Structure formats: structure tokens, C-alpha cells
């Protein structure tokens, strides 16, 4: 997933960036409101973490402009404890959740995952498709009840499919949402990862969960397919 972090405190911003990358997300970092607004409205963002007290455009303004443009991705705001009025106002104009500073990084990651899951329409962290069982919260993947080992990128591709059930996902989309802007990956990498995922998820070749749609991309089977 591609996650935007708008935070003016350098250390916190870098810390969040590292933690999110460790989880396999692509991360865009903005240090002020003006850049933040640019990223938030021009980039294919899946979730934004926005500090309310920012230099330049305020965090509140970014949330407002994002929703004005009908962008529907989840927004998580960061505030100080005593800013209840701001928190409520931000939620009223379209933020989805808040985390109060100071926070533990694990807490924030849990909220991020829950928001991503909820925005894909999953109420529970557990997603089942055929023999496959993915826990989007603990990142635990089981096939026929057996725990599977996946690399970070294999998991991120699988997670992207789980969060976009039944949708056609193009290679370009996977690139944009799973890699940082400056990573410039060879599009061949996606094909290699898809190939490895297919072999791992369907060793016998009788389920075939990932369809290839020529010229359009891939589609992950739905449960009822």
C-alpha cells in the first residue's frame, strides 16, 4: 500500500517512514502542509497520516481538500492529547481516525492496518478465499490451515489483492502502490513475484487463484468464484 505521511517533526516523520517501509508499504514523506497537499491530491495514495499542526497548509485544510476532490482513501490524523476540539472537527470534515501524541509505533501500525482493511470493506482482520486464509492484522497467511512463509513483497502483493477483491489490478497499479516513487522497479519484478505467489498458493495447479487478463493486469479470485 502507498502511504503518505505529513508530519513536520523530522524525527517522527523519519521514524514513521522507516516503520511503514518495514511493513512493506511504499511511503511518501512530506514535511509541511503545502507539499503534503500536493502529494495527497496528486499521488495514488492508499492512506494518509496527517499531523494537524503543520507549517504551511494546515492538516485540517489538507483533509478538507482531499474530501472536496472526492478522494476516498482513509485519513489518520495525529494530534496532541488536549486537542479534542480539533480531533472532532477533523473527523467531521472527513478524517477516519486519530492517534494522540505521544503514541507507541505499534499502536499506530495497528490503526493503519485496521483502516486499510476497513476501507476495503473487511470488518474482521481475517480474510478467506478458498483454501487461503490471510490475517491482515498479524500478517499470518495459511493455506489449508498450514502457515505459509512469504517474503515481504510477496505478502504485500497478496495483501493488495485481498484489499481489492474481485478487481482487475494492473502491473502499473501494483508498482505505484507497492514501491516508493524513487525505487523505479523493473516491471519484470511484479511478474516474477506473481509467478512465485502462484506456485506457493497453488502447488498442485488445480485452484489457480490469480487470473492474468491480457493487456489489463491480474485479478484475484473471489470466494464464490
Amino acid at each position: 500500500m502507498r502511504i503518505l505521511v505529513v508530519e513536520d517533526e523530522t524525527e517522527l516523520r523519519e521514524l514513521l517512514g522507516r516503520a511503514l517501509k518495514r511493513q512493506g508499504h511504499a511511503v511518501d514523506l512530506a514535511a509541511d502542509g503545502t507539499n503534503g497537499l500536493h502529494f495527497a491530491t496528486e499521488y495514488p495514495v492508499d492512506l494518509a497520516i496527517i499531523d494537524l499542526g503543520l507549517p504551511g497548509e494546515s492538516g485540517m485544510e489538507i483533509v478538507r481538500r482531499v474530501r472536496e476532490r472526492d478522494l476516498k482513501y482513509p485519513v489518520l490524523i495525529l494530534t496532541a492529547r488536549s486537542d479534542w476540539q480539533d480531533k472532532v472537527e477533523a473527523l467531521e470534515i472527513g478524517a477516519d481516525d486519530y492517534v494522540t501524541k505521544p503514541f507507541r509505533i505499534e499502536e499506530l501500525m495497528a490503526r493503519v492496518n485496521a483502516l486499510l482493511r476497513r476501507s476495503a470493506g473487511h470488518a474482521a482482520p481475517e480474510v478467506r478465499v478458498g483454501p487461503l486464509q490471510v490475517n491482515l492484522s498479524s500478517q499470518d497467511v495459511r493455506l489449508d490451515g498450514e502457515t505459509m512463509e512469504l517474503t515481504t513483497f510477496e505478502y504485500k502483493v497478496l495483501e493488495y489483492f485481498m484489499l481489492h477483491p474481485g478487481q482487475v489490478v494492473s502491473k502499473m497499479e501494483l508498482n505505484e502502490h507497492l514501491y516508493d516513487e524513487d525505487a523505479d522497479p523493473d516491471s519484470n519484478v511484479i511478474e516474477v513475484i506473481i509467478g512465485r505467489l502462484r506456485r506457493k498458493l497453488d502447488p498442485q495447479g488445480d485452484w489457480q487463484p490469480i487470473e492474468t487478463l491480457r493487456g489489463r493486469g491480474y485479478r484475484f479470485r473471489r470466494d464464490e468464484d
Partner: protein
Amino acid sequence: MAARNAASPSLLVRLLVGAGLALLIALAAVGGAIDRVFTNAAEANMRERLEAVVYLILSTIEVDETGQPVMPESLAEPRLNRPGSSLHGGAMTPRGEWRSPSLVGVAPQPNARLIERGTELFRGLEADGNWNVFAIGLGWELPDGEIVDLTIWAAEDPNRLRMELAGFREDLWRWLGLAGVLIIAGQVGLLLVILRPLRRVAAEVGEIESGRRGGIEGRYPRELRPLTDNLNALLAAERDNARRYSEALADLAHALKTPVAVLRARLESSEPARPSDLSRHLDDMEQIIRRQLERAQRSTRRALPGAVAVRPILERMGDSLERLHVESGLRVEVAGDAGLVAHMDERDLWEVCGNLMENAAKYGNGSLRASVRAGERGLRRDGLIIEIEDDGPGIEVEQVERLLKRGQRGDERRDGQGLGLSIVRELVEANGGRLQVDRSELGGARFRVILPPR
């Protein structure tokens, strides 16, 4: 102090200048009116006098056969006969003239002329330095039947009227001036009595400044009560702020002692310190500093906060919480009169309601009730009760005591419900209220914020 005095004159001076000016205008108007009435009366009086002379002359005068006016005997008005007096008279026909003996040696002589039969002439104050004159024109039938014009006149030296008026004016203004002085003196006395409570307040404030007094204690007129009460509130808030600051500083110093000691021990020990270990301690210190700074910030508040409507805050919080907890199906019920207001800092009120409602949403099982109602009746304003209830497991008595315990130091508190509640309690108490916890009809905990009447 001197500069302030120069910029803003004292109340006494303002009142005196104001009242003095008003009095001056009023006295001038009164004086002017009296002067006019008197002048008119004096003029009418003079006219009467001159008329009497004219008729006196008319009753005595003869015109001989040549048409010459003749005065056969001396007149009954002695001033007409005494040379040098101020009253004169005369009669004239086209053929001759008689003038009263009083005009002997007077220069310049009145310039008499004939006026038309049947008319009168009067020249009063408008004479302006000339003679004041009254004259009548009539016809006199001579023995041969011829009728000649006869004009009888009386004149008075204008200085007489002028002196009369000057004397009156001097008296008038002297008395009016005396009245003005008496009125102003009375006013000064009255003002000194009225301003005495203000001077007493100033004296008490001076004593507060020098530390001999804690607040305004004396009994004051009703009009001054808001001032003295609010001054006392201001003083209390300031003392409170100062105490909280020093407490926060003491807490900060105390809280930092341990991690600093540990860090020093690590650095001084022979074993090399592990960076991750040190960074954990630094994280702790950072947390402590942040928390204490936040607390110190919270501790400054306005002494006389405005009125904040409570229900809209409960409603907005409720809506937000319902959206946040949409998966667990949280239902928030808000009750209470929309017009009820809390007299406390708006940020504090948000913080109190926000923390209590967030806890209720977190620890309840999907039902939350937030309500506001009027509390005890007060003289100036009633108290207020805000209740936040949930249907969770509730809170045990020992737990309440632990969570709300007084004197617990900031560094011993950890994030989570404990910190939230101790902040709520601190804020409620800083605004003069108290926080109670018991069991709700919903089955869970009921937090009650009670703001006292005033």
C-alpha cells in the same frame, strides 16, 4: 504610577470638571434669563415714570394766544425744577418751546422736535447713550379757535437706567456665584463619601500587593460586588496557576532524577552501554518532559471563563465516536437542554467530555449515554451536572480510588485510562468542580462532573 495618573485624571477631578461645567452653563442660563426679565421690567418702569412726567406737564401747561407754551407755576415733580437732576421735560409748539428748569446748564441739550398729533414716541434702552425719551403729540385749541400742534416730552439721562441695571447685575452674579460655590462644595463632599469604598478597595489591593492580605475581604456596596468578587477569582486563579507551575516543575525534576541517575551509572560503569538501552531511557525522558510540559500548559487558564454550551459538545463528540466505532455498532444517546452552559475554559470542557466519552466508548459494550442538567441553584448562576455513562463492566471502588487518587505524581502515571482520568479530575477541579464515579443504570460506570453554583 505618575504616568498613569497623567494619562487618566482621577474620578474626583473628572466629576468636578464635568459637574463644574454643567453648573456653569446652568447658572449662565438662569442668570441670563433673570437679567432679561429684570431689564424688561426696568425699562417698563422707566416708561411709566416718563409717562407720569408727560401727563404732569400736560396737566399744568398753558399755550398763550401767540401759540407759545407757558408754564404758569412750578411743577409738582421737584426733580424737574432742580437744575442738574436727571429728569427733564418740555413742551413745544411750532411757535415756541418750554423746557424744565432742570435742563439749565445741561449739555448737550435734548434735541426735541414736533411729532404728529395723536402719536406717541418712546425711546428706551435702544437709545444707546442718547436720551431716554417719552413724548406725545396732540393739538391745542387757541382762544381764537385755531388748533396748534403741541408735543410734550419727558427725557431721562440714560446713565440712570444703565446704573440701575449694572447694580442689579452685580448683585445677581454675586449671588449666583455663591450658589455655584456652595453646590460644588456639596458635590465634593458627596463624591468623597461615594468614592470611599473605591479608595478602600484600592487600599486593600495595595495590601494584597505587599503580601499582607490574600484577597478582598471588606463589605462593599452591591455595585462594587462584581468587581471585588472577580478580583478575588482572578487572584485565586493566579495563585492556582503559580502553584501548578511549581508542582509541574517539581514533578519534572523528580521524574527526571531516576533516568538521569541510570544513564550516568551506565556511562560510568566499566561495561560499554548498549545504544538501544540508552535510547530506551532517552525515550522515557522525552515522554516525561512532554507530559509535564502538557500539564504545565493545561494549568494556565482564564480566571473568568465565558459560557460554553455543553450539549453541542456532547453531540459532536457522540457523532465522532459513533463513526470511529462503527464496527462495534456504538450507539450514543445525548440528553439535556441545549441552552445549558458551563462556565469553564472551552478547551478544558472538550478535554473533560472527550476523555470521559472516549473511555466510555472504549470500555462499554456499545451503549453510551451523555447528559447535561442544571445542578444546585445559585445566586448568580446555577451549578451544572454532566454525566457520561456506559454499559461496560463498570469500575470497582478500589479502582476508582486508584485512578482518581490525589497526590499521585505525574511520572507514576502511565498512558491509558489512568492518565486520562487523572487529567479529567485535574481539569474539573481546576475549574472549581468535582468528579464522581458510581454505577450507571446502563450497567457500567457513570462519571459525573459537578460544577458548583455561584
